[in-house]
């Protein structure tokens, strides 16, 4: 395992970056310019430019949607849905994804070096919002020469970014698929994020965010934060079926606090695998952005105002066993879009796989996604004629 600094240096060679030179006024009123936005693309933009799809990633995602992530050497985070011959077929479509600002895969975030101090930002990084993330990503479309996307898609925080994107830039995408998300964070979701943040901040290594100076990570706190996340991504039924009370490679209890149960072992594995690839301060910043997200608060007049004059064709997808972003919350977005007179479809996928459903192989979901995007492509081509 390379040191954290070594890993981050290694990253820089493998990552495409756009220098965002246009000044960006953040929601916290600070203005920033000349910051890096890391991104990746898959497939080719066609001559008519009618095949571009922008994907927004979730909390712990990055720009490496498909193929092999060159940094972690693992599959891209949405390899089930994006790639050659997949639901979002990269033989046919030009897929774009950027790492959010506040993240840690090459975009401007708390582990980047602050030019004023020559040290990593840590907690000197400004508190960013979903809107800040989206505004910075919009500059990427200009850079790639795309006036209007065929589609934009995203699940969880990716879906929240997408709703923000549509509200802030009403005519930038022909269609949109917000998946398992909401127009604001519920008290339960804020509480779970707070749990993750407190776990990190309770780790003495965290040291008010200054750990990078010592070239270390608050691994224990970050791992616990990840475990909280993993519990919330599964459903009660799915977890029971997957693990039940099965013991981890042993016949009986060991009467100790080692991982006797498979579910414990799973959580520890997920937690400690995560610390190899993610920056703890980024979790603080990104979860904060999610908690602050509230579209109706942003627009005087509420959600109807946020979605007025929408030409975008929406497909909202929810999962029946998702308790993090419930079907009801997703339907509330549908209701708001309807009230604003927008063109909206809605489907609930019946599954036991919980919030994670959009990331795993869930055939009904993938078929629906493919059916929608392919039919939108035909319509978009006709509109462009």
């Amino acid at each position, binding site marked *: 395992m390379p040191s954290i600094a070594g890993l981050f240096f290694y990253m820089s060679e493998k990552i495409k970056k756009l220098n965002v030179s246009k000044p960006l006024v953040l929601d916290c009123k600070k203005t920033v310019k000349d910051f890096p936005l890391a991104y990746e693309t898959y497939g080719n933009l066609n001559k008519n430019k009618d095949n571009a799809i922008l994907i927004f990633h979730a909390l712990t995602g990055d720009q490496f949607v498909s193929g092999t992530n060159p940094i972690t050497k693992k599959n891209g985070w949405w390899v089930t849905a994006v790639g050659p011959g997949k639901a979002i077929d990269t033989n046919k479509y030009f897929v774009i994804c950027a790492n959010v600002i506040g993240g840690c895969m090459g975009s401007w975030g708390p582990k980047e070096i602050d030019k004023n101090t020559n040290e990593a930002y840590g907690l000197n990084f400004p508190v960013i919002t979903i809107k800040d993330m989206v505004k910075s990503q919009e500059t990427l479309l200009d850079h790639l020469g795309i006036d209007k996307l065929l589609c934009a898609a995203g699940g969880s925080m990716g879906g929240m970014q997408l709703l923000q994107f549509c509200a802030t830039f009403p005519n930038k995408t022909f269609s949109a698929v917000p998946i398992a998300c909401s127009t604001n964070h519920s008290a339960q979701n804020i509480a779970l994020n707070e749990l993750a943040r407190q776990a990190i901040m309770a780790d003495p290594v965290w040291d008010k965010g200054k750990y990078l100076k010592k070239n270390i990570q608050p691994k224990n706190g970050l791992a616990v934060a990840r475990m909280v996340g993993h519990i919330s991504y599964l459903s009660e039924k799915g977890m029971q079926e997957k693990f039940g009370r099965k013991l981890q490679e042993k016949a009986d209890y060991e009467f100790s606090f080692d991982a006797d149960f498979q579910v414990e072992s799973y959580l520890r594995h997920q937690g400690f695998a995560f610390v190899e690839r993610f920056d703890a301060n980024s979790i603080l910043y990104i979860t904060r952005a999610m908690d602050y997200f509230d579209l109706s608060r942003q627009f005087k007049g509420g959600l109807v105002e946020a979605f007025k004059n929408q030409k975008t064709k929406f497909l909202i997808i929810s999962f029946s066993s998702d308790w993090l972003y419930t079907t009801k919350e997703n339907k509330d977005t549908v209701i708001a879009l309807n009230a604003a007179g927008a*063109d909206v479809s*809605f*489907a*609930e996928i019946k599954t036991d796989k919980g919030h994670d459903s959009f990331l795993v192989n869930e055939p009904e979901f993938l078929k629906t996604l493919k*059916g929608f995007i392919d039919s939108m492509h035909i319509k978009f081509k006709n509109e462009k004629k």
Partner: protein
Amino acid sequence: MKKEFRVIADLLPRNIRVLDVGCGDGSLMSHLIKEKNIEVRGLEIVEENVKKCIYKGLSVIEGNAETELHQFPTKSFDFVILSQTLQAFYNPEKVLKDLLRIGKSVIISIPNFGYWKVRTSLLIFGKMPVTKTLPNSWYNTPNLHMCTIKDFFDFCIEKKININKVVGVNEETTSEIKKSNLEIKNLFSKVGIFLLK
């Protein structure tokens, strides 16, 4: 395409906004877009049908009309269509009220329990009728509130709902139903289509 859908399409002007409640696999929606350039949305409860609509690029919301019509704003559509489903609701009166709130006009079609074959089945054979428009048996029918064209006609008058036009549909022909020919049409129409305002 079903004859009933052709009659419904004929009742609609071009270039309007329509909500098709219980839109099924979207056949009527596709027809309305193609023939009349209508901006149409669907509401459908059956998951398989919802997906079929999405694959066709139609705008459809998965949901139950009995409980979810509140999501559509008042007078947000020029026409709301409900095809042969009213009898399946627990509370058809409430659903109808909602349809009349959402649409400037409403088109409702009902399978006619007064159709002569239905009447004969019960009168002569003493059995609950099973016909093309009423294909289920008594124990598995989704229909909770069957009515005749005459029943629905009277219902609208009682509730002060404005009937603009009624069309009777049977095997070969379609014909306009008026108060004067109601008795005979109630006997010979398989389906009644009501245009309400």
